């Protein structure tokens, strides 16, 4: 317990100045059980090399830190306040990009399915095609699409990993943001937020972003193995990196020694400039307190 408090002490001190309207009345999410990340990475599961995949690469595509301000979680006390945009950012964006368009053909756009789950959107679409249909047919189409969307989120797809770790409360916050991303009318008014403990935020980041490329556990990697293409496992992070090095590597990038003798290299890891330092710190603490297995 003492160790846990020490680690959180590293994470918590930076409280952002001022709170947004969104942060003033956050819903307190029912405590979701925090569990360690486990198993092989998504890329490993798909037998895909990082160089041959677009998964997880929005870190590299994203704007430089100074230009990224649209979505940042705020903190109230020890909790992070997450909007739907924040949940999208830490769970979906690494693959689906900021606008949801993905990177076809490997990563599908989420916009079409989200639009097709909207009865007003589908009604207008049929009208525009000169094929108006009755409400019951629209309801049949859109309810099926909504069910498919939620099933995909829970169980994953051919390439997409399962996001079964998301709680119902988190999905209830994320889902309206997908509507906003898809440009559905009046969706801005339905945006919500929730307060989450740092451990949970770290878990969401690790499972939703880091685990795309990093296996949970493996033999400890050395500079030579990294040079030959091995991606360090998540379990090695707290042992091989300090808190501040980890945060820096994630959020702004940091050279690492590769090979023997070590040569300083930028490495292949994307820079996740859209994650705040507090969020990157929460990921480090989560990996420390809940060792991957």
């Amino acid at each position, binding site marked *: 317990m003492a160790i846990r408090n020490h680690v959180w002490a590293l994470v918590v001190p930076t409280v952002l100045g001022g709170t947004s309207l969104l942060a003033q009345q956050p819903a307190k999410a029912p405590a979701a059980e925090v569990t360690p990340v486990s198993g092989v990475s998504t890329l490993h599961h798909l037998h895909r090399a990082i160089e041959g995949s677009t998964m997880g690469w929005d870190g590299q595509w994203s704007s430089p830190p100074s230009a990224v301000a649209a979505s940042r979680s705020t903190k109230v006390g020890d909790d992070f306040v997450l909007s739907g945009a924040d949940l999208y950012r830490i769970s979906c964006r690494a693959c689906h990009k900021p606008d949801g368009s993905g990177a*076809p053909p490997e990563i599908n756009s989420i916009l079409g399915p989200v639009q097709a789950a909207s009865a007003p959107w589908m009604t207008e679409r*049929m009208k525009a*095609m000169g*094929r108006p*249909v009755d409400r019951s*047919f629209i309801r049949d*189409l859109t309810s*099926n699409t909504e069910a*498919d969307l939620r099933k995909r989120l829970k169980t994953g*797809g051919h390439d997409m990993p399962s996001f079964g770790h998301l709680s119902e409360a988190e999905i209830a916050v994320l889902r309206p943001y997908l509507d906003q991303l898809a440009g559905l009318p009046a969706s801005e008014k339905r945006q919500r937020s929730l307060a989450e403990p740092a451990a949970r935020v770290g878990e969401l980041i690790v499972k939703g972003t880091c685990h795309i490329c990093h296996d949970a556990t493996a033999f400890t990697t050395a500079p030579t193995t990294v040079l030959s293409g091995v991606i360090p496992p998540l379990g090695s992070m707290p042992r091989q990196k300090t808190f501040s090095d980890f945060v820096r590597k994630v959020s702004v990038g940091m050279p690492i020694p590769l090979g023997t003798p070590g040569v300083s290299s930028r490495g292949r890891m994307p820079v996740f400039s859209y994650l705040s330092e507090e969020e990157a710190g929460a990921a480090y603490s989560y990996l420390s307190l809940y060792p991957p297995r």
Partner: protein
Amino acid sequence: MKFMMAVLGLSAMAMGSVSPAGGTIEGTVTAKGLASNADAVVFIQQMPGKGAPPAKPADIDQHSMHFVPHVLPVVAGTTVRFLNSDPTQHNVFSPDYEKYNLGTWPQGQTKDHTFAACAKPPCAYVQLCRVHPEMEGYVVVLQNAFFAVTGSDGRFRIDNIPPGSYTLGVWHPKRKAQPKQVVVDPAKPATADFVLAQ
């Protein structure tokens, strides 16, 4: 295209409605204002006796986010088998006529729909995927199996047609043209050209 025409000829003979000494209609369809003359269905509107649907399903493949073929003419009563060849879930629905929503299914699996509800052919059913709004295809239900689909050059050919006088219709997803009267004589191919306009 040649393959499709050959298949049509065989299926028409299998229906027992074709004389071995049947005639041919050939020609060209020009789609004004479009980059391609493909996807026009040219068909004999009415043939004595009702064409029986084939015993085997006709196939549409959902491949690389497209319905393949883009336009599929079938005889009324034909079952169309929709295959998903993409590594993502697909759906098929149509808001036309009896309306159907076949659900979603993964790569390698199929779903069938039988087009038995067309009271007055031709009946064009748009095929849509609710998961991927950019996908669009067509099933055109016809009274008989004497039809052809144009390629990008606009050419078509229908073989093994019993001698007689017919009305030749044309259907296209975006353009229209008036039907034409054609006399089929086994001694020489009949010619019919269409210019499609809005």
